[in-house]
């Protein structure tokens, strides 16, 4: 029975206790506030600012929702490969490749009508992200090369590539020497919903999650993914090949991260530049680990974290750097892991209750 416990793993266990996650979020926020206190900031003020900035107004909610879109897509990009125990630490790089590919296509074909340019741009962005992920997925599938390290290192390569392109082939004609591209044609942007700032991209994470859930549950390939994730050895004995699942989950994950990059470059920034991600790909790791491969929970957590990103901007007024959000998310992650492990220890091991009885 112990083997079951360890096989189920931390991931599966966490999926069972939403109470633990909520507690973890609260504890993480509390701890982070304490850390702010040690550097001389009032925890009450900071937290109020954080939450008011994140969810306190119509504008804040809109902004948080918009930030939740790339976060949720990147979260799914991590959560899907995690289903077969692969860690995609490279959503950040896939995001950037998506942005690059989308911008390149949009800038190359400015005269196309929206009906053609928009789908092409999106397809290019997704293909860019997928290709970047496959750079790590293929060695993993063929030779078993550790994907944690390769996906991560590709992030840095992507950033260098972006820097290179922005000082070379994609540098804009009016950039005045700054590393920035021309403004993308408006036809490449997603339509907005009515008069709000919200664009059609908000449906993408929902649609992606729904599609993935259906695929995992009702298709042969999805069944194989669940089996490989639950027990790679048993799946192998049943004649399932992990190769296909590795390529498809990582590739699809990369495509989703690339889609996030596409949306950011076409709608949020309107041109390719550096600093288009405040670390979405890294936050996505915390999101997926917290949501425990549950795709719906991934979206919910992404919304919360999107709020933190926006609230974090508000905190800059108190001279708290943006990186506070990253720390907050890391600490929440620890609280969730710790909570799950402590709960497992409490409920899983009755011997704790009673020391050897001595007369």
């Amino acid at each position, binding site marked *: *029975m112990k*083997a*079951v416990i360890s*096989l*189920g793993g931390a991931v*599966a266990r966490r999926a069972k206790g939403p109470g633990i996650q909520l507690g973890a979020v609260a504890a993480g926020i509390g701890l982070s506030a304490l850390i702010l206190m040690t550097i001389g900031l009032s925890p009450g003020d900071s937290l109020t600012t954080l939450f008011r900035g994140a969810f306190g107004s119509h504008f804040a909610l809109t902004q948080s929702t918009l930030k939740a879109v790339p976060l949720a897509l990147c979260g799914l990009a991590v959560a899907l490969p995690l289903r077969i125990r692969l860690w995609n630490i490279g959503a950040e790089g896939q995001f950037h490749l998506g942005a690059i590919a989308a911008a390149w296509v949009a800038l190359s074909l400015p005269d196309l009508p929206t009906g053609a340019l928009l789908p092409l741009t999106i397809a290019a962005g997704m293909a860019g992200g997928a290709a970047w992920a496959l750079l790590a997925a293929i060695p993993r599938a063929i030779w078993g090369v550790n994907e944690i390290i390769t996906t991560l290192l590709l992030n840095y390569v992507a950033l260098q590539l972006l820097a290179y392109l922005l000082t070379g082939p994609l540098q804009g004609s009016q950039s005045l020497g700054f590393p920035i591209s021309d403004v993308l044609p408006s036809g490449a942007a997603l339509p907005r919903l009515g008069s709000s700032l919200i664009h059609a991209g908000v449906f993408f994470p929902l649609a992606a999650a729904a599609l993935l859930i259906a695929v995992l*549950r*009702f*298709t*042969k*390939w*999805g*069944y194989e993914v*669940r*089996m490989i994730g*639950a*027990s790679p*050895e*048993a*799946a*192998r*004995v*049943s*004649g*399932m*090949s992990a190769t296909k699942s590795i390529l498809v989950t990582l590739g699809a994950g990369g495509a989703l991260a690339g889609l996030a990059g596409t949306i950011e470059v076409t709608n949020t920034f309107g041109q390719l530049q550096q600093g288009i991600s405040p670390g979405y790909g890294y936050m996505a790791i915390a999101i997926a680990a917290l949501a425990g491969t549950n795709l719906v929970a991934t979206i919910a957590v992404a919304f919360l974290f999107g709020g933190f990103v926006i609230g974090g901007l508000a905190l800059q007024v108190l001279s708290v750097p943006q990186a506070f959000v990253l720390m907050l998310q890391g600490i929440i992650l620890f609280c969730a892991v710790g909570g799950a492990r402590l709960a497992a220890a409490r409920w*899983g*091991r*009755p*011997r704790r209750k*009673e020391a*050897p*009885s*001595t*007369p």
Partner: protein
Amino acid sequence: MSAPPELVSLRGIVKDFPGVRANDSVDFDLRPGEIHALLGENGAGKTTLMNILAGIHRPDAGEIRIRGEEAHLRSPRQAIERGVGMVHQHFRLVDRFTVAENVTLGWHTPRAIVNRRALEREIGTLAASYGIAVEPARAVRELSVGEQQRVEILKNLYRGAEILVLDEPTAVLTPQEAAGLFESLRRMAAEGRGVVFISHKLDEVMTIADRITVLRRGRNVATVTATETSPGELARMMIGRDLPQAEPPAAHPSEERILELAGLEADDDRAHRALRGVDLQVRAGEILGIAGVAGNGQVQLAEAIVGLRPARAGRILFRGQDVTRWPLRRRIQAGIGYTPEDRLRHGVAPSLSIVDNLIAKSYRSAPVGRRLLVDRRAARRLAAELVERFDVRGADLDAPAGSLSGGNLQKLVLARELSANPWLLVAAQPTRGLDLGAAEATRRLLLELRAAGKGVLLISEDLDELLALSDRIAVIYAGRIAATFPAEEADEERLGLLMAGFPGESPGKPKEEPSGR
């Protein structure tokens, strides 16, 4: 009656695991100079009790006294300090270390700096003084299983263990090696040490033990003196009911060959050759038993046949077709079934539902598989039918497979394999770790398969089981088939010699070292 002072006295030991009470108020005594057998079926709580004495588990209640002094053992280290040493069923050796390094591991001598040579000399002397044959400078991973066991024993002697616990020590030995072990155990007892001998084999216990304590379902049944009991009485105490004895139906093997191996060679995980030219045939309506000491290529044989391990040379013919290069999936579809030895790891995905586990071999084709999709309703119907037919008890269809007991888990694996209507079933240690009822059910299924004219390759370390079920028995040693003969011509002595590498009837020199595990 003046009893000698007890080395160990356990009183009222209680140990709970999630869902199971492994020990329920168990008492146990060990005197100096005695060999005390702890007898019971699998799951009777023998190992748990001794793990408590060895400081691995802490009891939930009860008292441990060692040489009359109460002991609160919080770690193996504290047990070792009190002279308790345990040889586990699964050896706890560091593969990459040498014998000497393993023996001295954890020994807190004042020397912080390791002097290899001196250590090896010291261990060599110690081993020689007990007549134990090992080379201190060799890496443990190069040793045979029997040699590794000697290293385990040596570890405890080096630490000056006065209380030596051996958990099912003969399971991995040939009868001859076991006799050698008994000899050294008697020598240790003669020096005044106490030896606890965990076993579920009656004859062995009668041979070696001075006293026998029988456990059943975590409780004491009795403690008896070996000279005052009989195997029959022990069996009744151990099982608590009469054994349902399966009578193998008369076999009608045909000449049709289901499986034929010719010169098959394969490597183990460390790229050492583990099969060195295996020739075998399994006929329709036949159970071919593979006998051998663990680590002589059984695992690789099973995996090479089902397609988990590539053949380095030779051919695998399945119903006349050369399947040597076929991928595993194609072999499954052609009708090769497999029940792996490690059920929980290779047989099922414990966290997935019973339904998901039952369709693992049938999801590709109708009715469960339809084009790209899995028909969940058809899957459920199939699972319900299999659970009913194979009597998988314990949980509903959506419960995780890991929640099933060992016996029901094996039934689930068998149900899945047999539902694919295989022509050949490769069954690796199919009854290991099962309680008697489940073991019996498993054996019955194998016999039914034979009666239906299919072939079964039965790999087992349980000689009684092999003799009872097999039509023919092949003995594997060092990656080769040493001999194949009809089961009725087999006896324990002949099997034992072959398993130990003595070809033919007369003991000679062993042909080759086994390749280890």
